[in-house]
């Protein structure tokens, strides 16, 4: 098959809509345009029925007992905001302490920072060199004021999958609510809110081949019944937790995406893991001093994150980005690229690596694309290494840490 450029390998930033999702959505823009809260005519009934189907499909995908436990939002960021702020405000009388991790995505960390300014105390639990958070560390961080534990399901940069069931068990044992940011996990790997003891779960459509602009928050209704202070006041939609007219076409697309993911997750995951392993093999077998980030046997099947010593992240992407869309978490601060706090959190060995590149594959990635991107990456790294004074020094046996660098 001929390659089509540019190649998209940045599927943890967003995914293309599956054509089946688009087909399902289209009628809801035109002839089936009703408002699902219009209770008095067929347009409204039709829209409400479509939303119900989507809600059921998503509930099935994440193992929710009752579709009513799903609240539609505008996406992952809003879901996370509603979960953390809503729970913090609702349970403020009970306590003012939240336990989370240092590798949450920005939405999670930024909400916590705001809550800290509002008088909440937040413990940010570190991760090990593979990006895994220890349940014992979470246990140790819990105080009698803790009202919420928030741990991401799978990391957006390194793909590491946390032991969510163990965190859920701990939360139950302590009687503390448990939120997980599952934006990268839902639709990719099995998620079961019942089996895993999850009380609140954030997810989004656009990372699972659905449309941008719609997400959901799972809010447990039984054992315990979780209550949230709404962020959006208005018509009392979504059980009063999120007022606003539901974007029916987007929700229908989200539901269709959930249905497809549920049916195809197993075979798709296996296929992507094989392709990902091949890409990893091409690169690591040809490039020295390149290191896999994350835990090899506990990561999302489509994720590959590699640190390359002696070359800078932006220059690597510059060599590839005309033909391949990738993403970089640079371990350095070159004015435009923020250092990756996720890579930094992995500890000393990762800090030595000067660039980290994330390759994320998706439903439409082909073996030919994998071969091409792998070879091109090797070429670009080799070219930049030939140009790198650090690589030259290292090859001469100079310890880079022994040099007194004159920073600007």
């Amino acid at each position, binding site marked *: 098959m001929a390659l089509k450029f540019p190649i998209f390998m940045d599927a943890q930033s967003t995914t293309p809509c599956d054509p089946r999702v688009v087909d399902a959505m289209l009628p809801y823009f035109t002839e089936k345009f009703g408002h699902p809260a219009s209770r008095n005519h067929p347009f409204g009934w039709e829209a409400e029925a479509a939303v119900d189907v989507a809600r059921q499909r998503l509930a099935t995908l994440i193992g929710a007992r009752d579709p009513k436990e799903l609240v539609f939002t505008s996406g992952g960021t809003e879901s996370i905001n509603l979960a953390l702020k809503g729970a913090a405000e609702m349970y403020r009388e009970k306590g003012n302490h939240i336990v989370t991790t240092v590798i949450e995505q920005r939405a999670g960390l930024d909400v916590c920072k705001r809550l800290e300014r509002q008088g909440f105390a937040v413990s940010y639990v570190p991760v090990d060199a593979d990006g895994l958070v220890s349940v014992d560390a979470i246990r140790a961080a819990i105080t009698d004021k803790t009202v919420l534990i928030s741990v991401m399901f799978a990391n957006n940069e390194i793909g590491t999958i946390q032991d969510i069931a163990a965190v859920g068990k701990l939360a139950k044992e302590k009687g503390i609510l448990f939120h997980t940011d599952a934006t990268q996990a839902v639709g990719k790997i099995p998620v079961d809110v019942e089996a895993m003891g999850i009380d609140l779960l954030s997810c989004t459509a656009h990372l699972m081949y659905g449309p941008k602009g719609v997400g959901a928050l799972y809010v447990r209704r039984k054992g315990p019944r979780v209550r949230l202070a709404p962020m959006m006041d208005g018509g009392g939609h979504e059980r009063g937790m999120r007022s606003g007219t539901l974007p029916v076409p987007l929700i229908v697309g989200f539901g269709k995406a959930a249905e497809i993911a549920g049916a195809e997750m197993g075979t798709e995951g296996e296929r992507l893991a094989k392709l990902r392993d091949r890409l990893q093999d091409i690169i690591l077998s040809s490039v020295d001093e390149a290191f896999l980030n994350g835990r090899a046997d506990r990561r999302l099947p489509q994720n590959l994150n590699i640190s390359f010593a*002696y*070359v*800078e992240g*932006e*220059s690597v992407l*510059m*060599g590839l980005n005309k033909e391949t869309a990738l993403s970089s978490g*640079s371990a*350095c*601060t*070159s*004015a*435009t*690229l923020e250092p990756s706090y996720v890579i930094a959190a992995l500890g000393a060995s990762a800090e030595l690596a*000067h660039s980290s590149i994330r390759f994320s594959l998706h439903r439409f990635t082909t073996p030919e694309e994998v071969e091409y991107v792998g070879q091109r990456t090797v070429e670009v790294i080799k070219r930049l290494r*030939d*140009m*790198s*004074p*650090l*690589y*030259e020094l290292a090859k001469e046996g100079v310890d*880079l840490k022994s*040099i007194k*660098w*004159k*920073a*600007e």
Partner: protein
Amino acid sequence: MAYSDKVVDHYNNPRNVGSFGKDTPGVGTGLVGAPECGDVMKLQIKVNLETGVIEDAKFKTFGCGSAIASSSLATEWLKGKTVDEAAKIKNTDIVNELKLPPVKIHCSVLAEDAIKAALADYKEKQATTAVAAASK
């Protein structure tokens, strides 16, 4: 972010990548920046000891495309200049030539620092050689 055509050209076809022996007579070496800041430049000049003219220049850079382009351009400009003329190259000249955006100005500053460091190293070596010759 979009790079100027000149930055892309220098990135794709860097001029004068390489190294001279540090102790070769007439060679001055500048090593500036820091790995944790994301930029390190090594810039070397080779001066004709008779004429004081920079005959050749080489660089190796760890950094973004703009850092690579700034040092590549610097080596082009250095060739054929006398040591005194070379000292007059300013970072703003590099910014203008490469059309660097504000966030990349530090790359040009680093290139100017690298030129100055190479010139200083060359002068220091000349002084040491002169002292050594005088004491013979």
